[in-house]
């Protein structure tokens, strides 16, 4: 995979867009445009459960393990990209 923050952020935005359409179609956030700068909590209004469920998809996509504690510091897709890149190096 290309592991620049931009490339990972773009891929995560795509995964999240697809994930919301497939799993949370009724949610208002499912139709929003998601970019690496999007804040998952304030802009998309995802609750903690939705963020954690999305994280399982990300783990499987990249075949990595993300510790639950890492989630508390993740707000934007770019933040998450940093965690994904770090987990890939481990």
């Amino acid at each position, binding site marked *: 995979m290309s592991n620049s923050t931009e490339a990972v952020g773009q891929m995560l935005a795509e995964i999240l867009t697809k994930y919301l359409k497939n799993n949370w179609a009724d949610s208002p956030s499912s139709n929003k445009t998601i970019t690496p700068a999007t804040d998952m909590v304030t802009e998309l209004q995802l609750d903690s*459960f939705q963020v954690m469920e999305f994280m399982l998809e990300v*783990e*499987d996509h990249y*075949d990595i*393990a993300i*510790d*639950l504690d890492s989630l508390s510091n993740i707000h934007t897709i770019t933040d998450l990209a940093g965690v994904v890149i770090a987990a890939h190096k481990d």
Partner: protein
Amino acid sequence: MPLLEKFSVAGQLKSGLGHVGKDPTSVVFEKLNSATEGVVEGRTTILAGTNNYLGLTFDPDCIAAGVAAMQAFGTGTTGSRMANGSYAAHGALEAELADLFQCTNAMVFSTGYAANLGVLTALLGKGDAVLLDSDAHASLYDGCRMSDADIYRFKHNDVQSLEKRMARLGDRARRCLIVVEGMYSVLGDCAPLKEIAEIKERFGARLLVDEAHSLGVYGERGCGVAEAEGVLDKVDFTVGTFSKSLGSMGGFCVSENDVLGLFRYVSRPFMFTASPSPAVMATTREALKQLRTRPELKETLWSNARKLYSGLQDLGFELGPEVSPVIAVRCKDRKSALAHWNQLLEAGVYVNMMLPPATPGGASFLRCSISAAHTAEQINTIIERFAELKG
């Protein structure tokens, strides 16, 4: 943000609960007529949301045991066992639990929540890893988070998801604890413990199973889902509560591993809280005795569960994936869940309302829990009241 500002979110949540009718968190039972009937706002109400699976809360022998213990040993222990000493009944209850589970070690905690905090914080430390089912109870999450271990979730009851994550741990798999429940409390579905135990053995990890809702419900001796699946000997630590099937209060851990005996010296939720009271221990011991000597309780419970499940299924409700004493009815959304819950209560049926984020898939449910003490007439009434929701 000022210190108290964060409570505005909880305040909005609370006021939202009362928009459709009565706030489900403010129900008061003015009187209890039996294990399955109470009085709410002057109305006789069938209790179908109490987790009182064996219906023992009004059992005359359990009550007599509690009264006798209170008369002999007083109302409370007034302190922790490490500081103030143990009562004979603490040890007796632990011996009886070890005997039921056919293992060598047992430890009693003051609540089921404290048992999970106490066991997980003692077992786990920095550098250890936890693989936790995504639908696990809050007490399991909290215990793991308090332990400083690295927590990785796997998809609920998904063996492949668990296996993939275990493989990702590499050498750390031997420092890993798998944490699951026997029966899950929202949907009443059971963990695939045979497959989970196989993964645990293959990777050299350890397994903790919370049988809070399955004690007294599954297995020939009533030990839970692991016994029913024939893998009780593969479970390293079983935790559970006395507050469901046994109709009492408190929690426990049993294990074949002697390390459990050392938890008493390192488990803060055990060391720094008052021990279970004499009445609690006595009623729990009597309920355990009844669990062992009255197999008909479990049979009646399952017969009642099948009746309610098929009755609601016939009405076209979307239910949890399998028949169990916990029967979750999926609602269209939060608003309809609140409206239906209110309608049922006003019609004399109390069930639990389960709303996101404390629910799988962010869905809203009306959760019924059935009891061995429910009569056929009560079950029919519950089904009739649900039928009225269909308009």
